[in-house]
């Protein structure tokens, strides 16, 4: 267990409260880092992010790319000897980063999540084609990756019309309030 002085406690406490996870139990065995398929795309290894919170290094933790590159695949958490729900810790940090309005290390990932939720809000289900179009529009980038998009259209992997939930009121209720 890490002894933290008063001022350093805040972020750790907040993340603990929101995720319900005691990451102070982390042994830094690095099982998570060794198994993570996306380690190369991260600036801090997953256990290093936990270390940052333990040390109260809020700014580094909220601005790091790891929290956005992590896809929550649970490869790490299913092997963690201390049963720490690492993806849930990442969730907590992402929420904090958005709340505090810090600079987001991977705006493309956030852009993607926003577009997904936009279609869910509209239809109750995701609509891939619209997500891709709006994602590209926001990025002002239509030409990279065109081949893949066309291939998907040709193979009918992108439905043109969205599949929708009938009970619109229920979806409104979900997106309203806290």
């Amino acid at each position, binding site marked *: 267990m890490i002894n933290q002085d008063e001022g350093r406690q805040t972020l750790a406490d907040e993340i603990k409260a929101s995720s319900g996870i005691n990451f102070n139990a982390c042994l830094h065995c690095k099982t998570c880092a060794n198994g993570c398929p996306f380690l190369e795309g991260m600036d801090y290894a997953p256990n290093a992010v936990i270390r940052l919170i333990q040390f109260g290094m809020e700014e580094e933790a909220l601005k790091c790319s790891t929290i956005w590159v992590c896809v929550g*695949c649970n490869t790490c958490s299913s092997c963690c000897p201390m049963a720490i729900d690492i993806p849930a810790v990442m969730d907590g940090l992402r929420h904090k980063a958005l709340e505090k309005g810090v600079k987001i290390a991977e705006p493309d990932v956030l852009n993607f999540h926003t577009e997904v939720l936009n279609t869910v809000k509209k239809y109750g289900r995701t609509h*891939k084609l619209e997500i891709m179009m709006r994602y590209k529009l926001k990025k002002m980038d239509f030409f990279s990756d065109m081949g893949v998009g066309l291939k998907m259209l040709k*193979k009918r992997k992108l439905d043109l019309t969205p599949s929708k939930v009938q009970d619109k009121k229920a979806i409104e209720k*979900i997106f309203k309030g806290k």
Partner: protein
Amino acid sequence: MKKFSKANENSRQSGRLTFSFFPGCSLKASGHENTMSLLKFCDSVNIELKELEDWNCCGSSSAHSVDQNVAKKLPMRNISLAPKGIPLLIACPSCLIRIKSMYLKIKKDKILKQEYENLWGLPFDEDLEIIPFFEIFNRIHLEDYIDHPKEKLKKLKVAPYYGCMLSMPPDLRFEKSYFGIMEQTLSKLGADIISFGYGARCCGTYLSVAKPQIAQKVVNEIVLKAMEAGAECLVTACSMCHLNLEIRCSLENPIPVLHFSELLSMALGAEDQKKWFPRHIVDPVPLLKKRGLLTQTFFASNTKL
């Protein structure tokens, strides 16, 4: 477990299993060939799937990433729609985690249960059984529906690919594990199982859109390792994995990727492959033809592709 003989139609009818069925957005909107073959398979093993009425997105990877409130309520609504007394089968592995995780949370937490009941005006169903597609193999005896199962897949060399679907968050770690189920089932049906080290490596999910280079590297590695191990095809049980392995692979002449449900249905004699295979980016037809796995019917109507 009850066994049903193929010859005895009556006992088969009476042994019909019914599940309510949550397809999820991936299957519903892009993995049509997965859905079609899955429904076909269930029908041939006497399972009735009733689509959960008016189901909604489980929140996918995005809700829990950026909006806790929505991440909580989207799965809640799906739970509230599930009819009582019938197990809820969730075809998509990540929807399963979202919905089951939320279900167990509500079960343990009185305040959350109250919130659920206030929100949907329904009592929380304490006994709802939420099961993955793989659970089917614990409930039926596959061989009862096939004559000479061992001859069906003609030693096709398949590399089973699970991606992250068997990795569970800590709150689900005491749930039943399905490691080895594709190997077991496909080898019963006469396939040659190729083991390779990347069968449980995550496919990159949405990084395929937001960070394509990262996804491409991981996907290429997975496909290449399966090829090096001698596989003729990969087989997946997740629509999202299937899509990523196909669209993000930049290797020259990659092997095709089949859905588990396609191989199952084929072994059970399905003849509508012509509706599934044109939706694959890497065409599996030459391989299956070489192995003698396509029937006359397939070629007869091939022109309609």
